[in-house]
């Protein structure tokens, strides 16, 4: 069994578990919606202002949502101590991380894609013709959030006050993701949209660096 086939099987398990209840997805989507609506009270949501502040607020909402949504990915395994079983089942513990990162990226991306038209309609922001660029940005940003977030969720799951601890550890670490994805999204939603490739490159660098770190140190995070 190779690393990827292991990870693929585990990814299937993560997705099946979630889609049985869909509780993670539905709560996260409602959470993002609430945050986006509340944000509209903090500035005058005219088209110009929204273009300037909207993408940043949207990414901030995604970041907050992720710091809540990533909590259960290891806590779920603690209830019946299924993590030990998983560790025994796969030869490389990195497969467990890959599966969880894949699932978290997928859930985050689904939330973001459902929120995008709502956001565009509410704040009168247009992304016409820029969908491929936006999809790429959302994917790379969510991947970065999931890689760092899954690693830190494995840490916070073993501590007290874990619900508060994860955002505390995660949000400062994700500052570069917030800056880069906001800048790319702003340029894509502007009056003269263009693709900011250096931002995309930056997101790729973040993702690769943290994936490598997790590949090197991941097994220690799961030690008993």
């Amino acid at each position, binding site marked *: 069994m190779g690393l990827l086939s292991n990870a693929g099987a585990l990814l299937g398990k993560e997705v099946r578990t979630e889609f049985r209840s869909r509780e993670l997805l539905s709560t996260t989507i409602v959470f993002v919606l609430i945050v986006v609506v509340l944000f509209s009270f903090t500035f005058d949501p005219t088209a110009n202002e929204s273009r300037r502040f909207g993408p940043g607020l949207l990414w901030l909402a995604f970041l907050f949502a992720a710091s809540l949504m990533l909590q259960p990915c290891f806590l779920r395994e603690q209830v019946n101590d299924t993590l030990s079983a998983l560790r025994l089942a796969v030869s490389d513990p990195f497969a467990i991380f890959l599966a969880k990162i894949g699932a978290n990226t997928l859930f985050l991306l689904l939330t973001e894609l459902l929120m995008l038209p709502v956001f565009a309609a509410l704040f009168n922001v247009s992304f016409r013709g820029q969908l491929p660029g936006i999809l790429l940005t959302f994917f790379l940003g969510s991947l970065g959030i999931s890689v760092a977030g899954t690693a*830190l969720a494995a840490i916070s799951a*073993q501590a007290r006050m874990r619900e508060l601890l994860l955002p*505390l550890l995660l949000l400062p670490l994700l500052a*570069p993701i917030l*800056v880069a994805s906001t800048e790319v999204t702003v340029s894509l939603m502007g009056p003269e949209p263009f693709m900011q490739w250096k931002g995309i490159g930056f997101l790729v660098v973040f993702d690769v660096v943290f994936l490598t*770190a997790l590949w090197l140190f991941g097994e220690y995070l799961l030690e008993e």
Partner: protein
Amino acid sequence: MAKRMLLGAAAVLLVIAAAYASFFVAPQERTMGVLQRIFYFHVSCAWAGLTAFSIGFLANLLYVWKRKQKYDWLGVSCVEVGVAFTTVVLISGPIWAKPAWGIYWTWDARLTSTFILWLLYISYLLLRTLIEEPDRRALLSALFGIFAFIDVPIVFGAIRWWRTQHPAPVIMGGPNSGLAAGMVPTFFFAVFAMHVFMWFLIAERYSLEKMRSDVELLRQEAEVT
């Protein structure tokens, strides 16, 4: 004990000497006058803090690799001392910035990444208080320390790229960018003094952590018997 006393005395004397040099030996800066003298203190603290975090990062790596308790003690000592120095930097910076720039704070790359660095290591210290079991605490905090340390250059890159379109601080853009020849000896002396002081603090903190772990061990033994 004698060695520690000696190191402590040397550190304190060196810092006093550096303070004297920065006030009375270094030449007066032309435009900012006496205000510029905080620079010797501010930048040497920043460098000492960064050195402490770098040693802490090495200690974290060594802990994950070797699993010796002493690396955990060294790691937490370095981070605490680094946070203390960075706090001094974050306070002394605005004291200088208000009269020099007219504002306390600007979201420039160096300031912002120092702030994020400080926040990350505060989270590291908080994380340590929330895990009871010593081995687990050591391992998980070492791993978080590693992630935090590799994040810092990325934060700096991001903010430098996108957030520093405004003219960055012109005066004293970098420690070597405009430093007059007469200031160089005082500056490096201050950096050296602060590093000795940092080392003294780390050594003290390390022995405290070691003692704490010994006490914990004794308490556990007492409970068993």
